Structures are given as C-alpha cells and as structure tokens.
C-alpha cells in the first residue's frame, strides 16, 4: 500500500515526476443542457422556421457528434428580424422609461443565473471549452454584464453630463465562436440598456446558447422584437450588417472580416465598432515573481484553448531569466489536463472546429519549418474530436510567422529582450494592439510600460482579467470602439 517511508534516495536527474500514481477518475458534468433537436430563428419574440426552410448541423467538437439542427437564416429572415426590431423600438422599447428597461435586464441576468448549469453544459458541448471555464467564467460573466448594464438603464443622463444621449434604434451585431454567450452579453446588454433593439447573428459553429438565450428572453417577458437572433453563416451576418434599418453595427471577429465590413459600410451613415484580432505581448522582467508569472503565461495562452483575441500569444522574456522561465513553463505544461471538455478536471478542451484545427496545425508546421524550437505536452489526446497539444515555441524571432500572425490556438511563441526599450519596441511591433501583460516586482516599471505599450488593455502581474465595468477594445488592426464600462455604453448612444 501507500506506506513508503522516507526513502533517502534522491532523484539523480533532479526532475519532478508527474506520473499516474494518483490519476483522477472521470468527473463528467451531468447537468441536463435541455437541448432541442432543432432550433429555429428567434424573431419578434417567437421561434420561427427560416423562410427557405434550410437548416445546418451543429456538432460537438469534443467528440464530433451532431447536437442539433440550426436554422440557416438568409436576407429575407434578417429583413423580418430588422423590421420586428424597428417596430419594437418605435412602439415599446424606445418610449419605455429607463427604469422599466432596467427591470427587464435584471430579470434576464437572474434567469441566466438560474439556468447557469444548463447554459454551461450547452456552451461546452457546442464550443469545446472546458466545463470549468464555462461554469466559472463564461456564464457568470455574461450574467454580470446584464446586471451591470441594468444599473445603467435609468442613469443614462449621467453618461455624458450636460449632453443628450439617445439610442440609435436598431443595432446589428455579429459575434464570434470563442465566447458565444459572453460575447452576446457584451453586445446585447449595453444595447438594450441604452434603449436600442437588437438583431444578432451568432457564429455558425456556436449558435446554441444564443438561441437558448431567446428562450430566456421569452421567460423574462421581454417585449417581442427587442431581441432577435438570426443564426446562419457569413452571408447572414453580411445581411445583418448591410441592412438599411441597422443604424449601428458591432462586430467581434477576425481582422480580415472586419476589413470587409469597413469596406462595405464606407459611405453609409452607419456607426460601427469593431473588436478584432490580437497578438498580445506578455512581458516578463527578470525581477518578476517567476512562478506567478508562469501561471499568468499559462492562463494567458491556454485559457479557452487560446481561442481568445487578447491571448498572450507572444511571450517576451528578459534574457537573463529566459532559460528559467522556459524550464518552469515546461514543468507546468506537464500538469495541464487536455481532454473531454465536459470533464470537470479538464484544463484544455477541444479546438472549436476542424477548420480551426487545420489552421493551427498549419501555422505550427510553419513554425517548425522556420526553425523555432517546439515543445509540446506529452498528454494523451482523445481519439475522437478536435484536439491540439499545448505547444511552446522557443527561440522565436520577430520575423517568424508564428510571432506575427494570430494563431488563435494553444500555441505560445517565446521571444527574448535585453532592455525595457527593446521590450516595448518588440511588443508594439505588430499590426495589432488589443492587450498586453507586464510582470515585474517594481511598480514604477509597470506604470512606465502601461503608458508605452500601444494596447487597449495592459494587465500588470496578472492576465485575462475582465469586469463589466472595465472597457475592453483595441488599437490599430485590433479594431476600435470599447465594450464594457461607461465607454462601451457610449458606443450604443447618440450623444447630442
């Protein structure tokens, strides 16, 4: 049995053993996600079949099993949704006093909390993220955004003192697949608080929780047409963006699509906010508390399989501690658990889609071909489903493709620097500017870095911290406009 007495032998290799002496048993989350076999479009408060009658399958990336059929909305469906939204805006939602709108938002927030477990399981099944993330981050944070903005609904006059604020009317929103329900909340909560009505297009691979959100709207008694959800592919999104009734559009997604949207809207009067890609620098100085920095680096790049626009995908380490940090990262990698997203002990789940897996695989191959030194975790991967080993690349230089392109997967590129100036230059030498991290024991260095880094968010001695009250958004090709906080709410208001 387990009675080994103090064995006096020392490990000559001086490495730690992370073996299978005490392997965790499977601990699957068993809550019922309450899913339907088929999901229709949510328009004017009702679930309605798409006009052309087309559906597409949504699958579980963790095991490649089909979950449900999702309605494929087209331009005609989007038109119906926009008209419903316009009607709701002029007849109900627009004229409604702010404090009444706030009540609906509070109700939605509470209902999300009531259904939290169910939404968490649905989110994990549909998107592949580990259940502990959807349970502890996505769903609670989505509810928090509704709570926060509910508080604003009757206080809009304090948003820009001395000036008039008014809603735009109908807002068109297109969201990505990495945080399906959370991005919906980031978009819908401020829009509704400001008095707008919404037509939202969820990402093709992750429509489930958005359509389940339609059920929440019904349960909350939200007036028909205030929120409309039209699932579908890229063309559906384009129809939302380009519809003449949407006077403001908000998009979160790739820089490539963001550019297309800007082109198509040039010359129109539409207001627009874009939250696009990133290639964030996570900068570790030699005086940083290294274990906590390593934890932050791991969290920065492997959170949600690296499907995070603000992921700390470029690690900049001061040369004097580069070897030490890499050794600690490798050791930490050995204890990360990759596998079934529904298992409560899974740290890294499934890649969202086969397409994305191929893209990551190709970029990683490129990294090896360009001569970067690859280190991958040796964990076992499930036979079915889309999985990718957590990957570190050492000896990366600024000209490598893996140091410039957004990989959007669990792949970290490690670069080194000698001085603070060099760190800043390398960090800013990217078309993106969404986020950055700084790790040092010295407060004055943090303040200096935060003014020099061209990034919308700079985290100090932490990473991936979010709060509804804190604005989030980018510089340069990472987009413009803010989400969250007073600044985010302003983007949903006409200020006169």
């Amino acid at each position, binding site marked *: 049995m*387990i009675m080994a007495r*103090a064995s006096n032998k020392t490990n000559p290799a*001086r490495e*730690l053993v992370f073996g299978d002496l*005490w392997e965790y*048993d499977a601990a699957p989350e068993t809550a019922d996600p309450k899913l339907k076999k088929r999901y229709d479009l949510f328009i004017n408060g009702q679930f309605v079949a798409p006009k052309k009658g087309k559906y597409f399958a949504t699958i579980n990336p963790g095991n490649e099993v089909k979950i449900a059929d999702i309605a494929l909305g087209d331009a005609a469906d989007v038109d119906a949704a926009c008209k419903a939204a316009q009607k709701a805006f002029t007849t109900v939602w627009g004229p409604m006093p702010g404090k009444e709108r706030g009540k609906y938002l509070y109700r939605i927030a509470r209902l999300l909390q009531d259904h939290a477990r169910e939404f968490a399981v649905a989110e994990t099944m549909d998107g592949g993220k580990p259940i502990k993330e959807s349970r502890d981050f996505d769903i609670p944070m989505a509810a928090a955004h509704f709570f926060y903005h509910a508080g604003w609904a009757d206080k809009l006059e304090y948003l820009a003192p001395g000036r008039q604020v008014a809603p735009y009317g109908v807002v068109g929103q297109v969201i990505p697949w990495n945080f399906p329900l959370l991005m919906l909340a980031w978009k819908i909560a401020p829009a509704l608080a400001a008095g707008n009505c919404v037509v939202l297009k969820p990402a093709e691979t992750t429509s489930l929780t958005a359509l389940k959100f339609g059920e929440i709207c019904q349960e909350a008694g939200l007036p028909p047409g205030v929120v409309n959800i039209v699932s579908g592919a890229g063309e559906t999104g384009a129809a939302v963006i380009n519809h003449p009734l949407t006077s403001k559009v908000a998009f979160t997604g790739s820089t490539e699509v963001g550019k297309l949207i800007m082109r198509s809207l040039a010359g129109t009067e539409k207001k627009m906010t874009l939250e696009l890609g990133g290639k964030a620098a996570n900068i570790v100085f030699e005086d940083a508390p290294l274990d906590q920095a390593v934890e932050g680096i791991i969290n920065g790049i492997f959170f949600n399989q690296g499907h995070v626009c603000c992921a700390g995908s470029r690690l900049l380490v001061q040369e004097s501690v580069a070897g030490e940090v890499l050794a600690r990262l490798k050791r930490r990698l050995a204890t990360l658990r990759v596998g079934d997203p529904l298992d409560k002990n899974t740290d890294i789940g499934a890649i969202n889609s086969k397409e994305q897996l191929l893209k990551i695989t190709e970029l990683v191959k490129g990294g090896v071909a360009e001569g970067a030194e690859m280190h991958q975790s040796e964990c076992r991967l499930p036979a079915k489903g889309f999985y990718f080993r957590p990957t570190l690349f050492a000896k990366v230089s600024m000209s490598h493709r893996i140091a410039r392109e957004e990989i959007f997967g669990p792949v970290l590129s490690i670069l080194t620097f000698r001085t603070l100036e060099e760190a800043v230059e390398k960090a800013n030498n990217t078309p993106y500017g969404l986020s950055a991290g700084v790790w040092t*024991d010295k407060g004055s260095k943090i303040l200096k870095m935060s003014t020099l880094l061209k990034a919308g968010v700079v985290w100090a001695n932490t990473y991936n911290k979010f709060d509804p009250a804190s604005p989030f958004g980018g510089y340069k090709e990472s987009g413009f406009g803010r989400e969250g906080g007073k600044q985010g709410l302003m983007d949903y208001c006409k200020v006169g």
Partner: protein
Amino acid sequence: MPVAKSPPSFRRLFDDIGTVDAVGIEERVAKYGTRSVKKGAKVFGLQLAVTMVDLTTLEGKDTPGKVASLCQKALRPHDVGEIPPTAAVCVYPAMVRHAAKHVKGTAVRIASVATAFPSGQAPLKTRLAEVRAAVADGADEIDMVINRGAFLSGEFGLMQDEIAAVVEASGAATLKVILETSELETYDNIRAASFLAMRVIRPNDFIKTSTGKTSANATLGNNQVMLEAIRDHFLETGVPIAMKPAGGIRTAKQALTFLIAVKETLGDEWLNNGRYRFGASALLNDLVRQLEKERTGAYQAPWNFSEASEGY
C-alpha cells in the same frame, strides 16, 4: 542590536531566491479546489491522507491515559474496514515515554514538539536539552520552532545556526522545522524562511507551517509557497525536503485539496508520508467518515467514529 549590513539581509536573500506575488499565488491555489476527485481516486486520496496524519495532542491537560488512547486511534483509526494506521502521533516531550509503550515497534512513529514549543523563547541550551531528552525517551521525529525574532530582525545566521544545532541534537530522529507562518506574515517571508531552513537540514527532514497555537495556521496559500520553495531547492541542489502543513485542516475535502497541490507542484515522489504529513487531530475522523461512506455507500452516524478529538 547589530547594525544591518549593506545591502540588507532580506534584500540580498530575495535577490537570490525571488519573491512571491500574493494575488497570483492565491489565484493558483483557488484552482486546486475546483479539481473533482471521485470514485477510486477519492478512496486512494483519502487512504493516502490517513497514512500522512501526525495525530496530535498538545494540551496542558494531556495525561498518559489520553496519550494511550491517541496511540490506539493512530494504530487502528476505525474498528471496521481497511483503514491504514497514521504516520505518527505527535505529543509533548513529557508524553513521549508514555506513547512509546504503545507504538514502539509498530508502523506509527513518535513525533515530539521540542525547543520550547510553541514560542521557542527559551535559552538555546534549554531547547537543545529538551530535544535530547525527547530523543532519549524514544521520539523518532522532532518538531522544532524557528527563532522568529532572529528571522524578523534579519539575523539569518543566528536562526540557521540554531536549526543546525537542533539537527545535531536530534541525531537519527527526523526533524521538522516549524516556520510559524502566521508570525512571518508575508508570503515573501515564508519563502525566505523556508530556504534558510532547507539549507541547513538533511534530506527528507521537513519544513512545517505552524504550531497550531496562533490565530492562523496552514492555508493552501502558505502550503503552496513552501511547496514551490521545496521544488526550487530540490531542482537546484538535488536535496528533497518534506513538507507538513499543520493546524486548521479539519475536513477530508481540505486534505484532498492540499494533496492535489502536492500532486501538481511536486509530483508523485512527494505523495507519501515520508515526504508529506498533515499535523491534525479532528481530520482523521473526517477521513475515516468519508472512507466509510465510500465503502458502505452511506454516511454513518457521528457516534460511530469516537467523534470528539478529546475522547479517543
């Protein structure tokens, strides 16, 4: 008081061993609590925890009779089921000879808190004499307290010399060095004291969080700081140091969370009672209760477990 040398001793030590970010370490340990240990893994973890308990009684009112029943409990924690004995019993030096009558020659070792526990505020000569007496009476392990006053005033040499003297006095007995983390206050200090102690003790001697006699005892945070110090020391020198959190770990769930921290920080080679212990009294009953629940499928009534820690 000696004039501080330049650069000051703390500054020099931190340049050497690095610092700890309090927010970061607490975030790290919060994740251990989200691990879900079920079925076979749970039984393994609970049994492992039982074998790691230093079943403790440290009261002014301890008597030979109390120590006798403590020893029986350590040897056979429950009357049914296959529950292994604990690692050791932990008693005051005066009680060592009484414990020896019951556990000498068994798997259960005798640990004794010596060195003017818990304050350590006695002349070194007295403290060393106490250690020698406990060892002579049959103690297999000595739990000593560090000179916190010397540490906090930056007299690291004095602190280390005293530990080295106790190492010598304890002879073949395993040494556990109590840092008394609540009196050191910061994670930085806990890391610093861990390193100072580890540099003068022998392979598989312990560093230990607390006496259990102050307001705050073992927490996941200071456990983690010490585990990471042990890891860094081991990787640097090849010398494995063992760890003992003590005080405040009362439930099986807590114990499993501490063990998860060990598994994910130091790995498999520390998952045995030669390298990890729990200083506890009430914990054993909860471990037994959970093991019985796993065995029988139902929670048993409290009176089945010689419940009160006072009345083994």
